[in-house]
């Protein structure tokens, strides 16, 4: 096991997330085959989505690892370093492609599509994620945001894309060639990556100190651009001011301040929305590809509930890592916890609104305007918002108990079952039922937030 190729392979597999994802991918292929052999066709079909998600995630992880291997002094100073580090991930890619073919053959009776089309989609997904990681100058909150609004949507629509590519063989060729060229360009870039290359410093990975450093650097990209823009057009510089103590009266302002500090670059999203909305509207009215997804708002319960929670946690990660120090500031702990809680909840509202605005309201203005007048429609949206807040409240409450796994597992299991149940039945809810369930959610929110607040006030920060 002393050859460098073996050591590089081991480097990947010793990294737990990569190991789990790689095994999940293999497991998916085997299970789909197994379920087909036992005539569990519906389960085999479900593996398609799972396969896409795991593949994209695996590519993301591989991209991070590859970047980490290349963006360090060893790449320039260890003999015979770079080429093996490029070859190994490409070898993995080839291996997983073979696994994928095996998976495809096993699913062939169900999904009758051209193998080349699916191959192209997967290579494209993997490449886009790799490129994002390779370039990596975006901060994690911006990246997660973009991932949700682009990649997740693409993977959601992977099946439609597959069908599209099946029907348009010329596009298969274009996507395939484009992917190959991009991959070779990435490999070449990796061979010559130096400390002064613009993407060198941005690695999205622990340890925390490096991670935070990179995130701060990534955040500066936006700040610098805005500063340059303001300077260019003679606009006065914005100075962030904090209201002084006592904080009670200034709670919202301070919470908003955290929001501004922690994801200042998200302000760019509003500008992007302003610019992109007309393009988006034009595309949903003309491209039939999106209609299936956007016409029915009731089939994406998890996207409007769980996704904003994940986003708000990612967006606040930088702030959350410093809570231990911030609590030493001259402020009552209760006020501090309350301030952070308000910032989290406000962030959740922001993301939920973005999802609903961009994926539900705007498409329905174009595709089915009559739907906007239905109580059922608004009841459903209220339910998604309430359940998202319930989930966040639960996370806030549970995060005090992170040292008690059994407690977390039981509560997590209950919440997942509840989410799954609502996912299945909410589509049949009338407006009144949605309202009633929302009220129940708000009771839960009150209980979790109150208990969570108390627990956080007693918590010890490391």
């Amino acid at each position, binding site marked *: *096991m*002393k*050859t*460098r190729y*073996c*050591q590089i392979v*081991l*480097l990947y597999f*010793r*990294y*737990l997330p990569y190991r789990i994802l790689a095994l999940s991918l293999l497991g998916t292929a085997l299970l789909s085959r197994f379920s087909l052999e036992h005539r569990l066709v519906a389960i085999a079909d479900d593996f398609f989505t799972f396969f896409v998600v795991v593949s994209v995630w695996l590519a993301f992880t591989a991209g991070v690892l590859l970047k*980490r291997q290349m963006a*360090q*002094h*060893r790449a*320039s*100073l*260890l*003999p*015979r*370093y770079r080429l093996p580090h490029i070859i190994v991930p490409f070898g993995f890619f080839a291996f997983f492609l073979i696994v994928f073919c095996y998976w495809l053959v096993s699913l062939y009776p169900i999904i009758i599509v051209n193998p080349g089309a699916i191959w192209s989609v997967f290579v494209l997904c993997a490449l886009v994620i790799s490129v994002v990681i390779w370039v990596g100058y975006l901060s994690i909150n911006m990246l997660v945001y973009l991932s949700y609004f682009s990649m997740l949507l693409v993977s959601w629509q992977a099946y439609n894309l597959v069908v599209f590519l099946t029907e348009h063989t010329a596009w298969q060729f274009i996507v395939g060639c484009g992917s190959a060229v991009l991959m070779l360009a990435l490999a070449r870039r990796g061979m010559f990556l*130096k*400390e*002064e290359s613009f993407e060198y410093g941005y690695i999205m990975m*622990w*340890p925390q100190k*490096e991670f935070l450093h990179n995130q701060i650097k990534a955040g500066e990209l936006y700040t610098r651009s805005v500063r340059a823009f303001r300077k260019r057009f003679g606009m006065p510089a914005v100075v962030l001011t904090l209201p002084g103590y006592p904080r009670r009266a200034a709670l919202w302002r301070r919470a908003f301040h955290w929001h501004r500090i922690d994801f200042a670059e998200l302000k760019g999203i509003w500008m992007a929305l302003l610019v992109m909305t007309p393009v988006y509207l034009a595309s949903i009215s003309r491209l039939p590809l999106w209609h299936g997804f956007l016409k029915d708002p009731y089939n994406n319960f998890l996207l409007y509930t769980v996704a904003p929670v994940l986003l708000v946690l990612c967006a606040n990660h930088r702030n959350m890592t410093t809570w231990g120090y911030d609590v030493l500031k001259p402020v009552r702990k209760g006020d501090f916890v309350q301030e952070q809680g308000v910032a989290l909840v406000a962030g959740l509202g922001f993301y939920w609104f973005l999802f609903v605005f961009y994926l539900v309201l705007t498409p329905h203005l174009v595709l089915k305007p009559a739907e906007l007048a239905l109580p059922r429609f608004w009841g459903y949206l209220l339910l998604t918002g309430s359940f998202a807040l319930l989930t966040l409240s639960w996370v806030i409450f549970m995060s005090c108990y992170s040292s008690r796994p059994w407690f977390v597992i039981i509560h997590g299991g209950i919440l997942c079952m509840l989410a799954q149940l609502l996912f299945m039945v909410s589509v049949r809810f009338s407006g009144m039922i949605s309202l009633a369930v929302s009220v129940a959610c708000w009771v839960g929110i009150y209980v979790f937030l109150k208990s969570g607040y108390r627990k956080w006030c007693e918590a010890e920060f490391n």
Partner: protein
Amino acid sequence: MNDPVIQAQRVTKRYKAKTILNDLFLAVPRGSVFGLLGKNGAGKTTLIKCVLGLVYPQDGLISVLGDNPRNFLERTKERIGYVPQSDRPYPWLTVRQLVTYTASFYPLWNMALVDRLLKEWELEEEDKVGLLSEGQAQKLSIILALGHEPELLIFDEPVASLDPAARRKFLKTILDIVADRECTIFFSTHITSDLERVADRVALLKNGTIDFCGELDVLKDEVKRLRIVSPVPLPRDIPVNGVLRCELSQYEAVLSVRGFHAGIKSQMEQRLNARIEVEDLNLEEIFLELHA
């Protein structure tokens, strides 16, 4: 064989508008223990990175072991060991796994030496790299740089995170290496007492250029402190060249002088009709005087 191991000529390095290294010359002789001194932000790390080809200077030529750092041959890389200021490459690996990984890139690897140093420096082989303290990570980084027994060792602030005991061990290791085989060591540090202990040559980096480069003893002979006591009031401008710092009262003066030689004392005694004592300075004092 007497060519300098590292040779830099007219090296200029700028980051945007800021010039870090300005028309710098440097020569590190083979077999020397060469210390690089400079204030924070003087450009020590930048110079080391230029020497290693991690960053490229805008102007000038650098040669390391006769090779160009912009495109080191694999054979040259095998002859170089480098310890950066901070290094924690793969936190999920254990110490042993990282050693094995690093060893796999070199045709020759002295595992016995590495094992001995791991034991001496009290590093547990099964500890995760990510869980090591700063000092332990620094020790591991040093051991990894020594494993392939390089001809040229470059350390960037190697002892910054080490406790006094570990620093002693590190210095002893350096002295052992130099005694055992011909190895050139080039290192930057702020801890002048350590440098004084092991370095036979020093370079002082100031304002982007090398202010002094040579043997440590020469530097010590060159920079002295003069205590002048006179029975008559001293003039405001004491007539001596190379004054670095001057504290003057009516009948007494303390001068730090660069370019000192035995003749200066007698000349000044005659001119000022004063008693002059010459004090030797240690490296830290010399550093402070030169940056006064």
